[in-house]
């Protein structure tokens, strides 16, 4: 589904990603872990098409298409979703309206009928129960006055409503208590399907215990320095990142992607 090939990206003239390569097959969940400043969020933003990040070399293929040539909204229409580490407040725009505008924009782009208010309400009501989100939050402006946990639930709710083919979750688990973490994990699991994939960027192993990723990658110094199975997360927790990026360490070869 996704092939990241020798990606170099910078912001403000500083290169953050130095030749990152990654392949994700259909139906897979990949975790990307790594210390602060390793380029995890840069990877997420580059995949979503955030403006100030500049790709200086490399390519990203999404279902064989050049993802980097697409606008953010085109990427969303193609099924890419970014769960924000710091979800943005939008005063004056009710969450419900935001969600419906987004969903209908995607449906228009895919030549589907727009959903009317009644159908939409029913859809959202079912999804918000999954993330245990209070109905009243949906009438409030997007993330305006939301707690950290409420914002993250809102991200997951958006993901469930928009049903992306590739979800990129940027530290969605940071700052969450155990209950909220379970909700996030349940949300991601509920989308699991042979045609959907996810990249879960995280600092901690806890979310991965709930998700059981197909692969875990260690990102350090702007490249993937090691890849392994779910047990790599446990190993990292026990020994830290120190052991995986000693000088001269070669990145482990990325395991073969599932054929599309």
């Amino acid at each position, binding site marked *: 589904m996704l092939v990241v090939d020798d990606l170099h990206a910078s912001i403000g003239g500083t290169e953050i990603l130095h030749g990152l390569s990654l392949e994700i097959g259909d139906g897979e969940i990949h975790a990307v872990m790594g210390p602060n400043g390793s380029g995890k969020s840069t990877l997420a933003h580059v995949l979503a098409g955030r403006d100030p990040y500049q790709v200086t070399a490399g390519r990203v293929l999404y279902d064989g298409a050049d993802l980097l040539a697409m606008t953010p909204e085109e990427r969303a229409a193609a099924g890419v979703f970014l769960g924000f580490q710091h979800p*943005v407040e939008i005063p004056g725009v009710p969450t419900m309206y*935001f969600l419906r505008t987004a969903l209908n924009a995607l449906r228009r782009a895919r030549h589907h009928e727009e959903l009317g208010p009644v159908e939409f309400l029913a859809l959202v009501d079912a999804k918000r129960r999954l993330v245990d989100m209070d109905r009243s939050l949906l009438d409030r402006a*997007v993330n305006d006055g939301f707690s950290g946990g409420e914002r993250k639930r809102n991200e997951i709710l958006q993901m469930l409503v928009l049903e992306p083919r590739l979800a990129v979750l940027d530290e969605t688990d940071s700052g969450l208590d155990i209950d909220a973490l379970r909700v996030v994990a349940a949300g991601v699991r509920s989308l699991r399907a042979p045609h959907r994939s996810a990249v879960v960027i995280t600092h901690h192993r806890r979310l991965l215990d709930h998700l059981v990723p197909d692969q875990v990658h260690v990102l350090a110094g702007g490249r993937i320095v090691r890849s392994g199975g779910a047990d790599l997360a446990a190993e990292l927790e026990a020994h830290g990142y120190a052991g995986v990026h000693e000088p001269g360490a070669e990145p482990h070869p990325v395991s073969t992607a599932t054929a599309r």
Partner: protein
Amino acid sequence: MTATSRSVPARTPPSGTAGAVAVDAPDRPWEPRWLNVARRRAAAWVEAHGFPTVKHEDWRYTKIDAALAVPLAAPPQGAVGDVDTLALADLPTPPLGGVRVVVVNGRVAAGLSSTGGALAPGMRVEPLADALHKSQGSLEQAWGWHADGYAHALRALNDAATLDGVLIELAAGALVEDPIEIVYASVPAPGAGWSHPRVVVVAGAGARATLVETYLSGPSGSSVTNAVTQVHLGQGAELEHCVLQGAGMDSFCFSSLEARLARGSRLSSRLLATGGRVGRHEVDVVLADEGAELSLDGLFLTGAGQHHDNPVLVDHAAPSCTSRQLYKGVVSGDGHGVFNGHIVVRPGADGTDAAQVNKNLLLSDRAEVDTRPRLEINADEVACSHGAAVGQLDPDALFYLRSRGVSEGEARAVLVSGFAREVLDRFGRGSIRGRAEELAMAAGLLALGEDGHGDDAVTAGLARARPGGR
């Protein structure tokens, strides 16, 4: 402090304005003597002071030269027959359900007006021209508000030259449920000059009503409206007031709200300004006795070729009064918005609670906003705050929406609507809100976000149709 003994207005009168102005104030034998005297006095004031220029503090950003090319007043007598071009279908729909008075080119058009069923007990609504034939104590008082002098010539000109308008009197305790609606329409007519409609609202103790004023004009022809609405609220009276300014893009729309609030009375006034080549809505409120409350909200959507000026003077003349102001501007193209808010707390007005906020959104690099919040405090133990902000659309919020699949154009429109919503919400939830939203849409509110590249506003439909949003 009573209305007539009000001290010299805080606005400074104009000086050094160019050119002699001759204002025609012919005697009108059918009007009471006091009115003839007052009209002559007002005309003389205009001749003595001239029209405001940009040297005048409160007119610094608003040029009226082009408006002065239009004759200042229509002949005092004449039929409304020349405005047959206006039909009921041209008026805003649906009617708001109460009394509706339609004022065309400054004169009440009886055929287009209606009482909307039985009048509420204690309410009297009368065309001003009729009321002026009689000697009305309340009108004599209204003309006396500026016996000491005017803030500027346009205000004086209305005193001198108004032909018609509406007198609304609410007896003590009168409760008027349905909104009283006044529609001002300017239509092209031979010899049409400036129109000076005048509305006087006198509410007795404890009376309650809603007044909605809508300004419209035909799509072509330059018209000038110079309207004054005077509101006198008795003890504990409450008025909900809405102004919807949707005048044509070639017109000048000068309007003014003057209010005097007695003890414990409450005025909520909201403005939505979308129309006019030049729109200037002036608010001048005196909180004249203890416990009076004022709430002012304004939203101006100023597009290419437009200029909206919002001078506000809130005069805390008595202790323990409250005032709240929230003005928002959305300026696109080469539009120019102005907020000029002045709060005065008079000596002795202890316990004043006054707040003023002005926020503006600039949608193109040619758009301009001037915001001048001013506080003048001459009392102790007051809580006064003011703040002003001018900004652009939040790029993070824009990206957030786009990352969810919303095109750049639509994302901009969503953010602009969100910005405007806070003020639109103050228009309530019923038919008045509907009217306000319709006007905002017609002004391209949803499409205004599209203006980031200096293009003229396009319709929401076009915004959606734009491929890729770039």
